[in-house]
């Protein structure tokens, strides 16, 4: 049970319970549609089923990092803890989704492209570099420092990381100018009705998962900083109380044994 600090006394609320309920229904539905109802692809065969997860997590990892960039800019502008906590929460989920994108993509690539990894592929390498940049962002967030100093450094790294992504993308594109990724099947209109529906269902489920995790992680983050802030305050008060209770000598230094 989380004690009451700040505006939240728990990480769940009516909205998160509703989102959680949607996920409880959505995830089994996605599994059923992905593995049973939807047909296999003519060229990719059963590997197409991985795309119902791979493409949505890739999309939402980019959205999550975008939210981190917006949160970082707004933090530097307004100096609001709300934006800092949002940026942090979104970056954590973004890193998780980005990692999942790389893993599922690699598993999908083995039967489809006959390789686990392709250095010449622009999207692969850009996603990997982006993943590593935000791993660094999260490492910076764990550094012991005052909440304000940490938030400011993280905000600048979050913004620079996002600005760097187009440069990385362009450099990898020029590097090999090749991609094993096919053009978007969605825009080509190559997907059959049930496949398209399953893809949309996957996107919806991953989108709700992102939102659900974001709200919970935001509230945990808020409680963490609140606890840190109150913890410092309590520690200072405790030391001050100790100091007032002591009989200090003329030098201001407690005599030996006085504080026992």
């Amino acid at each position, binding site marked *: 049970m989380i004690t009451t600090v700040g505006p939240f006394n728990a990480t769940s609320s009516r909205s998160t319970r509703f989102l959680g309920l949607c996920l409880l229904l959505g995830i089994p539905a996605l599994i059923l549609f992905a593995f049973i109802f939807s047909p296999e692809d003519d060229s990719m065969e059963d590997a197409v089923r991985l795309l119902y997860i791979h493409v949505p997590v890739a999309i939402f990892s980019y959205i999550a990092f975008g939210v981190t960039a917006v949160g970082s800019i707004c933090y530097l502008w307004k100096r609001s803890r709300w934006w800092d906590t949002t940026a942090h929460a979104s970056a954590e989920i973004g890193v998780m989704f980005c990692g999942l994108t790389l893993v599922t993509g690699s598993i999908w690539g083995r039967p489809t492209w006959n390789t686990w990894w392709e250095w010449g592929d622009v999207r692969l390498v850009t996603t990997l*570099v982006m993943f*590593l940049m935000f*791993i*660094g962002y999260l490492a910076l967030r764990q550094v012991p420092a005052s909440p304000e100093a940490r938030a400011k450094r993280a905000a600048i790294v979050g913004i620079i990381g996002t600005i760097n992504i187009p440069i990385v993308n362009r*450099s990898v594109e020029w590097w090999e100018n090749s991609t094993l990724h096919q053009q978007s099947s969605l825009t080509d209109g190559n997907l059959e009705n049930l496949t398209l529906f399953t893809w949309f269902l996957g996107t919806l489920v991953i989108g709700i998962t992102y939102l659900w995790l974001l709200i919970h992680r935001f509230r945990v983050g808020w409680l963490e900083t609140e606890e840190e802030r109150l913890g410092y305050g309590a520690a200072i008060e405790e030391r001050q109380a100790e100091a007032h209770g002591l009989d200090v000598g003329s030098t201001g230094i407690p005599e030996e044994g006085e504080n026992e």
Partner: protein
Amino acid sequence: MLADSWLIARKDLQVEIRSRIIINQIAPYTLLIMVLFGFALDANTQTLRDTAPGLYWVAILLVALLAIQRGVQIEDADAARDRMLLTPVSSSSIFLGKSLALFVQLLVLEVLLFFVMMVLFDTSVEDPLLVCLSAFVATVGIATSGTLYGVIASGVGVRETLLPILLLPVLAPVAIGATRTFGDAFGRVNADGWAWFGLLVVFAVVYTVLGMFSYGQLLEEE
């Protein structure tokens, strides 16, 4: 502003000239890295010749980390940064000055390493102008981004491990771009070296501007 930047750069360079850390420790370390590459690639001269541009820039990025850490360490010691902030010098000038000092140190290391590479890896240059200009611009990019990330990682106990995690992914475009320009200039790869040179210029300009605007924000919190 430029006069102030030069003052800051001169201060950092004087500290380095007196301590001789770059020449006595970091330069031999660079040489050691190149020798290790030779061991790792099985003393195959043809392979070393083909991969020389990439190995050269990997070595430069590794020693750049050491040089950046060294610059941050100087400012962390004895609250030197706080005292520098008390001077009537703008944060942009401090950023440019520190970047310039790092740039000069890296350039010295690059020249040394270049001749080591020519001898050990038996390389030859077909386009010296492209080599000089791309090395110059890539070093500006490394120095400006390194100075910026150096201050982000400063003042924390885990600076040595944090800085590489933060900086190396950011420097990916420099690693790719500088390797390609050198590859083209050495006649080893079929790439448009001047297009890559343009990308290195963009990187250097972006990080110089970003640094000038955000360095003050990071210094204020110290």
